[in-house]
């Protein structure tokens, strides 16, 4: 199954997994027919870029409870060596997240900045929790991320889900 290099079918795999755990209602992933699109307004070399991650801050979620995860921000310059990924769904058997750069590309973007490929990195990167409730993401977290990006003059965001 999937050994030949075809992409893993994560939605089907996850549905079957949660049924095996004894959950009766299948999760419904977001789906949209219409997708917004903002073209770059100026050459990439003049854009301010940020990074958005689904990882939690190094100290983990509030009170150690993943249900209390909230939007958070950290400084790109001097970003923590490790973020908390314990409460996110990723392949904990096949790999690890001990190298921050494998999911938060600070060094790679700093090199691209030094090479003049982008205009600036924003002061902050941002964390957005993956929540079961899409309504909370739509009504609270996504607008809050947008607000924080606009406050720092961000033109472009790299979104990196674990």
């Amino acid at each position: 199954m999937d050994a030949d290099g075809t992409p893993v079918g994560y939605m089907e795999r996850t549905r079957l997994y949660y049924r095996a755990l004894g959950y009766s209602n299948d999760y419904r992933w977001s789906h949209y027919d219409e997708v917004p699109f903002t073209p770059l307004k100026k050459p990439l070399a003049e854009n301010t870029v940020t990074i958005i991650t689904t990882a939690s801050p190094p100290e983990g979620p509030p009170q150690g409870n993943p249900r209390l995860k909230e939007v958070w921000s950290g400084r790109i310059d001097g970003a923590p060596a490790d973020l908390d990924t314990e409460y996110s769904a990723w392949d904990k058997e096949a790999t690890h997240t001990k190298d921050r750069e494998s999911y938060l590309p600070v060094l790679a973007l700093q090199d691209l900045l030094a090479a003049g490929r982008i205009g600036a990195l924003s002061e902050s990167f941002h964390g957005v929790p993956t929540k079961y409730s899409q309504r909370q993401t739509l009504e609270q977290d996504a607008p809050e991320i947008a607000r924080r990006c606009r406050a720092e003059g961000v033109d472009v965001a790299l979104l990196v889900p674990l």
Partner: protein
Amino acid sequence: MGLVARELESQGIATVVVGSALDIVEHCGVPRYLYTDFPLGNPCGPPWQREAQARIAAAALDLLEAASAPRTTVQAADVWPGENGWRAGYNRIGPDNQAELAATGEKRRQWQSDTRL
């Protein structure tokens, strides 16, 4: 994360998603997507492989310039080093682990009940 991309784009911020769950990202629908065919957890490149990570970040920026319409997906050239066993291993269900999974589910529901907000 697709929902965040949609919000940012609607507010005039251009986005590119870098991620490994092809079906989930495309099901949601995002403006620009760099697909990296790796186990979940390292969408920006295998751990400690700085050259691969640099290529992937550069490819994400290239896609920002190249895409002219939403739902543009590009697959990164880098491949996961080593065996392909991770593809079949993720959330594997077999006759040998069904009882364990059922027990894990029970424990999880108890925790969910205990921590209900």
